[in-house]
């Protein structure tokens, strides 16, 4: 039935690999232990790879006609050709992976992660398909009849993998700017999506009764389609949730295949990755005060933008300042809190920003950074960019740790963030972002707000009343250029 049991040493090795993966995530609880954690992850993967290669080493059948009689000793039962092909496949992947990892710009990290998710998803589909075509090799079939439980597992693995793949491809295209970040709304999409999902579940259920190819392949094809349909209507700034969600799916796909292979390393990993992605999605949704369902339903930032633009608030008076004004104000300050957002990533302003921080510190000003959980396009995006620019991580604070400090701060310096600083989220019940936790920048003595022009609105499509407050000075320019000008004035 369920194949021959694995030898104890193999099962034990997979278990150790699984434990290494747990320790890898555990290491991320602090930057100090994080690099050791990563090495645990690498060790776990090496153990899993070597164990698999040794235990499942390709062997030729003894009576194979290819072999001359003189080659028929013990060593020759190894299929060196296949082993070579496998080694070549790993080498190709290693070169592509290492080169990409080395070259990628830190600002492009969200795209890269989305691309990597798509690969895991596709790999899961391929493994499930291979298991379907050659079930004997996976020990899940007897006489060509696949064990019904394994059918459900491989069906789910293939379906989740396919959704992960096509969803991640769309997320990649949106994050990479190949596709508009605006939500694309099909009429009746909820009905279509629910229908397709129901159909997939139905097909997987029917697969237990009938293992014909059409059942398996239709489920896979529909899953590719639903991944596409689900992500297309979701707007660019909701991508932190989407990327986390796809992260979670790639884990569940691995777990489903782990069930098929009865492999504890895969099951443990799948569960870890699945929960990790789910928790990150939850954190992101909470930081936007939106339900997971409403994010997944999509469409946010489309209709609202039109309504906000028609509000006619653009003509309200505001104060405009220059780089020199900003430099003067910050030099006099005791404490400056910098609030970065996606705009900083787009403008690549993090290095100039760190230079500005260094100059201010030389003047005796205390400089801190405040990060909103959904600043940027993926969880922790801003932290990585600041780390890249050599900002020490102990100067960087999360929303709840620093929010009370704005009232005691002379200057709040907002660069590339918008909605996450909007006081309307606290006061205006009619605002689409009402209830979202925001940074209390308006409580600082002076707010310096870098923005390209007064015309545009934030992602949520709402005007930010912060712009028109008495203590706000607007710095209208490209973020990087403005910071560089401030650095010049400070120097």
């Amino acid at each position: 039935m369920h194949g021959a049991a694995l030898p104890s040493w193999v099962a034990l090795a997979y278990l150790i690999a699984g434990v290494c993966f747990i320790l890898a995530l555990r290491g991320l609880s602090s930057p100090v232990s994080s690099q050791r954690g990563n090495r645990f992850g690498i060790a776990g993967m090496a153990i899993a790879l070597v164990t698999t290669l040794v235990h499942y080493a390709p062997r030729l059948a003894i009576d194979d006609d290819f072999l001359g009689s003189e080659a028929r000793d013990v060593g020759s039962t190894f299929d060196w050709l296949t082993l070579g092909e496998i080694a070549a496949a790993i080498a190709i992947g290693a070169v592509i992976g290492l080169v990409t990892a080395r070259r990628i710009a830190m600002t492009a990290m969200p795209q890269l992660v989305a691309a990597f998710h798509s690969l895991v998803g596709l790999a899961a589909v391929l493994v499930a398909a291979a298991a379907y075509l050659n079930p004997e090799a996976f020990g899940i079939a007897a006489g060509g009849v696949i064990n019904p439980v394994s059918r459900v597992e491989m069906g789910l693995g293939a379906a989740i993998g396919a959704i992960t793949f096509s969803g991640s491809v769309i997320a990649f295209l949106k994050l990479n700017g190949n596709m508009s970040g605006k939500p694309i709304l099909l009429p009746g999409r909820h009905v279509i999506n629910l229908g397709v999902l129901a159909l997939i579940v139905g097909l997987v259920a029917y697969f237990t009764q009938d293992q014909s190819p059409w059942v398996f392949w239709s489920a896979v094809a529909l899953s590719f389609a639903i991944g596409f349909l689900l992500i297309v209507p979701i707007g660019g700034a909701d991508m932190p949730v989407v990327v986390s969600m796809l992260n979670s799916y790639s884990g569940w796909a691995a777990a489903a295949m782990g069930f098929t292979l009865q492999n504890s390393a895969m099951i443990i990993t799948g569960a870890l990755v699945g929960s990790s992605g789910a928790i990150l999605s939850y954190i992101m949704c909470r930081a936007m005060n939106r339900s997971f369902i409403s994010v997944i339903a999509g469409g946010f930032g489309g209709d609202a933008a039109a309504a906000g633009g028609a509000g006619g608030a653009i003509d309200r008076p505001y104060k405009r300042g220059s780089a020199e004004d900003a430099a003067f104000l910050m030099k006099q300050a005791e404490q400056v809190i910098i609030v970065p957002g996606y705009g900083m990533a787009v403008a690549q302003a993090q290095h100039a920003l760190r230079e500005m921080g260094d100059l201010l510190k030389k003047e005796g000003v205390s400089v801190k950074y405040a990060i909103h959980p959904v600043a940027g396009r993926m969880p922790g995006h801003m932290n990585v960019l600041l780390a890249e620019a050599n900002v020490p991580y102990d100067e960087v604070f999360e929303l709840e740790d620093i929010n009370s400090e704005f009232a005691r701060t002379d200057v709040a310096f907002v660069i590339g963030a918008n909605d996450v600083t909007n006081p309307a989220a606290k006061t205006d019940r009619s605002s689409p972002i009402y209830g979202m936790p925001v940074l209390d920048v308006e409580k600082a003595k002076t707010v310096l707000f870098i923005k390209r022009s007064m015309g545009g609105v934030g992602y949520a499509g709402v005007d930010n009343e912060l712009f028109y407050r008495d203590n706000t000075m607007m710095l209208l320019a490209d973020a990087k250029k403005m910071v560089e000008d401030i650095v010049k004035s400070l120097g």
Partner: protein
Amino acid sequence: MDFITILSIFVLACFVGYYVVWSVTPALHTPLMAVTNAISSVIIVGALIAAAAAGVPGAKWLGLTGVVLASINIFGGFAVTARMLAMYKKKPSSAQREHR
């Protein structure tokens, strides 16, 4: 292993994952995604089995392709995580800063 044993491992691992991930500092959420990505490529185990098995050429080629894709992820994922983690530095002491 019977199904219930596997299911037990899975359910317990979900709980372990839940608590371990909540203890991850938010500053490291991007490396967390990169490293979970790398470890979820443990699916390469399945691809290797398919690639090594004789008999069905179609399955073998699917397996080999899977090995390539998963390897990209494994090597790329761990390398990019290491690169990111190496950037996280503590505030240098004031004496060190003078030398820069």
